[in-house]
């Protein structure tokens, strides 16, 4: 009889423990476990992709890219006529102070807006070959690889860019399935005045709720932006 008496509380304790563990298990897993679908695999499972951080990001600009000065003329093929940099610069003396402390070129490049810190033009442009650029240690750099210049100084942005959290991209997140193209630095930042330009926002909301709020904001002419409660 005594044995049976012990069995009951023992069974209760065991059941409580199991029940509690099940409950806790549910709590840990949260909602995820309940909602798994029957998975029918289409195509191959995602293989681990190449380390994106260390992958060579294909430059948006093709190799051999060369900027030219626009003349506004059109040749008989219908292409715009551009002048290569060396055409003029072959006969010019390099001015190492150009660009520093606001010194702008006296002639040509008049529409250039320059706002890139304290550097001179020749910090990046190559005085020995104006159809190329130069790295900080003087090595020649092709225009197609221009973003290496940016990467020299802008480390955090470079790190973010290489890890996909800075700079636009198109294509596939899963690089085993397809390619991805990236914008380069100069696609968004003008190298001479790299501060990101202002955009006009598009696609203003026109749902009833947004319009109602807009009407109310316009009505209250103190359109302060701090609405403390």
């Amino acid at each position, binding site marked *: 009889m005594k044995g049976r008496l012990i069995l009951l509380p023992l069974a209760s304790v065991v059941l409580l423990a199991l029940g509690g563990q099940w409950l806790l298990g549910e709590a840990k897993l949260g909602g995820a476990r309940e909602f798994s679908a029957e998975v029918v695999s289409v195509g191959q499972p995602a293989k681990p992709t190449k380390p*994106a951080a260390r992958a060579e990001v294909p430059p948006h600009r093709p190799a051999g890219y060369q900027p030219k000065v626009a003349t506004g003329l059109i040749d008989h093929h219908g292409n715009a006529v551009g002048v290569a940099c060396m055409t003029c610069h072959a006969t010019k003396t390099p001015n190492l102070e150009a660009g520093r402390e606001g010194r702008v070129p006296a002639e040509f490049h008049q529409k250039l807006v320059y706002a890139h810190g304290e550097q001179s033009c020749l910090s990046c442009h190559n005085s020995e070959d104006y159809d190329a650029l130069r790295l900080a240690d003087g090595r020649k750099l092709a225009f197609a690889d221009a973003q290496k210049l940016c990467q020299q100084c802008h480390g955090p942005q470079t790190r973010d860019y290489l890890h996909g959290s800075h700079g636009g991209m198109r294509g596939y997140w899963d690089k085993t399935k397809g390619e991805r193209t990236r914008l380069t630095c100069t696609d968004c930042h003008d190298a001479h005045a790299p501060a990101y330009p202002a955009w006009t926002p598009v696609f203003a909301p026109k749902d009833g709720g947004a319009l109602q709020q807009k009407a109310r904001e316009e009505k209250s002419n103190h359109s302060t932006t701090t609405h403390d*409660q």
Partner: protein
Amino acid sequence: MINNTPPAGPASAPEAEPAGGMTRRTAIKALGATLGAAAFAQAIAPLTEWAENMSLDEYLQKHYRELSPFDLGVVMARMEQITKEETGVDVHIGDYRPQPGVKFGYALNLSVCVGCRRCAKACHIENNHDRPSGNSYIRVLEMEKGSLDLAKGRVNYDKPVPHPDKFYMPVQCQQCDKPPCVSVCPVEATWKESDGIVVVDYNWCIGCRYCEAACPYHARRFNWTKPQVPAAEINPDQGYLSNRLRPQGVMEKCTFCLHRSRQGKLPACLEACPTGARVFGNLLDPESEIRWVLKNKRVFVLKEEVGTQPSFFYFFDE
């Protein structure tokens, strides 16, 4: 013997039964009943219009998770045909299943987002949203620097962005790991799939909007009317659970463009972002960019205290 007529009102004496068996009262009652029936038919006339547009197959269709691949194929073919009849456009509706070993995560860089709303617009186009209302799954808030208080956010900004005192926060479905919208649905028309995306079966939803009340992020949208998209603007690459043309009276939401992402492509909002503020990938892949962001950036989620465990993360660079 107490008459059935109430004593307080003007009493009406019971009519003597004439030989024909029909009293004046009965005749009036019959006339009234006829008029009533006619009025009833007139009242419900709009329902017959509405019923004409419904097919029996569609009405009896089973839940997505109970359809065999063959039946689902039949359903999708029927939908493609209906779209062709109604709009003249040849669309392709696919059933894109979750891939094993994939759980999607999305991160948004609040230092880089400029609030241009191109993501919202791309979503509008990609997902075949209703044009007149400008519907989109993404809502961009202009926030005050120095505060994360959503009450200080505005959606109606139109000056050039970014404003120096503001930062911009796009909000869309967070694909929560503990989604309140899934718990509350009475018919299981919405559920979380194994790759993390919370989906809706548009042909099963009854339109009660309980999920819309439950969502803490204003992520769910209801089709208050039949969505109108000009034929030329219809995106023909459609998914059954994502951007196919939705019917009236059902819920819908952001699906991380599953018709694209389950094929390895980037969602439309990310591709449209000119600054690259959006990061998307597989949370289960330790080498993915989203994992790098989670590890190296100080990320946070919205309304963490509500306990929904979102899969959408925000971060600043500095």
